[in-house]
Structure formats: structure tokens, C-alpha cells
């Protein structure tokens, strides 16, 4: 499947098979979750990042099923570059109606970056000015967990984390995704 037909697929799924929800509702709900975490964890932003990632992971485990059902992907991705393309053009398109740009491939084609030109989760947001949040909090960290969880269910172990965020004053919002390994269908240890 070519890159353009994937874009068309994403568009089609978004238009015909996705239940829409008001954008502000999503933004404010996600915002409340993050803000409440920050409060509950007493400004331990490293821990907030971790919790967001964990929540996202649990979402990803479930979301991949929905993704596969709605997108009707017939064949497996041939390589990691294909996977990246599908994540951006079908996955993000279908759930958030955005298409992050894929950039900065490593030479071994195992690492790439998703550049978010827009981020519906982060509308209105200004990080608290406590001297720490700007340096430690990855506000949209849930997205990393989602990708990690979803790919794990399709036999790919990846590491995903943000490296830049406009909320911190960077020029772009960039998520780095690296393939750790393909998970073989493992048999349970004492399977006869």
C-alpha cells in the first residue's frame, strides 16, 4: 500500500467510521488529568510523565484493536518505515485528525521522529511557571504510552518519548520513536 493511499485511507476512516467528539472536551479533560496528576504528585514531574505514559500504554493496548477493525488493514507492514507511515497517516488521522510529519530517520531505519505541527491536547495550555515544569514535564506524554502499547500488541517493542515540545518554548513538538525489537510469538515456557 502506497503512502498516498494510506493518507486516503486515514481520511476515509476519519470521515465515515469515526465517532466525533468536541475538541474542547478532549482538551479540557486531558488538561484536568495532567493538572490533577501534577497536584496529587506534588509537582514530581518525572513521576507525572511516568503515570501519563502508563495511562497511555493501557489505552494503546485497547486502541490498537479498534484501529485494526476500523482501518481494515489487510496486510502487515513490511518494515518499520511502513509502520511509521501508518501511525502518522492512518492512526493519528483517525483518532485525533492530525497527521504528524515523519522526519529524522536514523541510518539503520530503526528510529524516527514524529513532528506535531498541531497538538489538540495542548491547546490553551501554558505550563506552570514554577521553574521546574518547563524543564521536566512532558505535557502530552500520554501519546508516547499509546504508541508503545499499541505497537506492543502487534509484536513491536518500541521506545517512545518526547524530545521537544512547543510548550517548553522549543520551535517544534517532536516525539522520538525507536524500535527495540520485534517480539516473536513466544510460546508459554512449559508448553508441551
Amino acid at each position, binding site marked *: 500500500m502506497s503512502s498516498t493511499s494510506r493518507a486516503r485511507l486515514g481520511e476515509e476512516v476519519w470521515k465515515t467510521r469515526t465517532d466525533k467528539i468536541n475538541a*474542547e472536551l478532549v482538551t*479540557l479533560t*486531558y*488538561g484536568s488529568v495532567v*493538572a490533577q496528576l501534577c497536584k496529587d504528585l506534588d509537582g514530581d514531574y518525572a513521576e507525572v510523565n511516568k503515570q501519563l505514559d502508563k495511562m497511555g500504554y493501557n489505552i494503546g493496548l485497547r486502541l490498537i484493536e479498534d484501529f485494526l477493525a476500523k482501518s481494515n488493514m489487510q496486510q502487515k507492514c513490511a518494515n518499520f518505515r511502513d509502520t511509521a507511515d501508518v501511525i502518522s497517516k492512518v492512526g493519528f488521522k483517525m483518532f485525533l485528525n492530525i497527521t504528524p510529519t515523519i522526519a529524522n530517520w536514523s541510518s539503520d531505519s530503526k528510529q524516527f521522529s514524529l513532528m506535531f505541527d498541531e497538538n489538540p491536547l495542548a*491547546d*490553551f495550555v*501554558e*505550563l506552570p511557571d514554577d521553574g521546574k515544569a518547563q524543564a521536566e514535564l512532558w505535557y502530552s506524554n500520554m501519546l508516547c504510552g499509546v504508541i508503545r502499547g499499541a505497537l506492543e500488541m502487534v509484536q513491536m517493542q518500541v521506545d517512545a518519548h518526547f524530545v521537544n515540545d512547543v510548550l517548553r518554548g522549543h520551535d517544534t513538538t517532536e516525539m522520538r520513536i525507536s524500535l527495540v525489537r520485534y517480539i516473536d510469538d513466544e510460546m508459554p515456557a512449559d508448553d508441551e
Partner: protein
Amino acid sequence: MASAPSIPVIAVIGKQNNPIYIHNSRLPLPSTSLTTSLDLHLLLHSTLDVFDARLPQKTADQDFGLLFAIDERLAAYGWMTNTGIKFVVIVDQGFSGSSGLSSRGGGLGGAIRDADLKPVFKSIHTEYIKLISNPFFDHESTEMVKSNKFSKAIAKIAEAGIPGVY
């Protein structure tokens, strides 16, 4: 010689009449009634009485129009949302003489119609909504707002002046 009307001051005042944000680009202004920053605060205080006095007669409309004229140059206009947040805009008509009364007619404050301020208030309201939609915004805080985004947006509105009035 009349110069274009401008907006030197935009103030946002909370439900409890607590100041939330005051944008002040060039006050105190010499040769007006506002010569010290204390004057400005007193003036904003007195606008609150006008809001209170007019409130019983108000219907759903949020536009309070001209609250009062301060002197030959300055006039205060008000807007109150249904949640009790008040926006006060002080307009500098920039008259240097009585010839400034423009062809748009009217006497003091007549060069600007109440309706001219509507888009200004609308954009202030929009920025205010964005400000409070920030999940880290503390609604219980009694301190003044310190938000870069908001400050910039308000400064921009003030700079843009009143659309359609020159």
C-alpha cells in the same frame, strides 16, 4: 487636529471585584486626568460602581457601553460577562482640541459609538476564555494573572485599537 483613538488601558476585573489583569501601555498620561498610576486604580474602582448601578436594568446583553467620560480625551467603556467578569477599556480619543469632534457626530465620547467597542470586547473575551481554559490556571487564586500568552494577546488587542474608527 485629531489623531486616531487608541486604547491605552484594558482591565479585567473578577467576580469579587478583584483585579485579574491590568494592561497599561502608556499611563500615566500627561495632560489628562490620569497622571499617576494611583489615579488609574481609583478610576477602575469607580467603574465598578457604574457596573453595580446599571446591573439591575440590564438584560442578557453584556455590553455596558460608555461607563463615563473621564475628561476631554479619555473615556471608560465596560463589558460584563454573565459570570460576573468585567472588562474595562479606557479609550483615548486623542483630541488635541475641540475640532476633534469628528463628522461621526455627538459630543463628548461621541466620536466613538458604543457599538464600535464591541469587537474589542469580544476579542478580550475570547482571550480570557483561552486563559481560563489552561488546565494549570488556578481559579481560586486571588493574585493577578501572570501569563505571557495572555499579556501578549491583550497587548495586541490594545495596539490594534478600535477597528473601523480612525
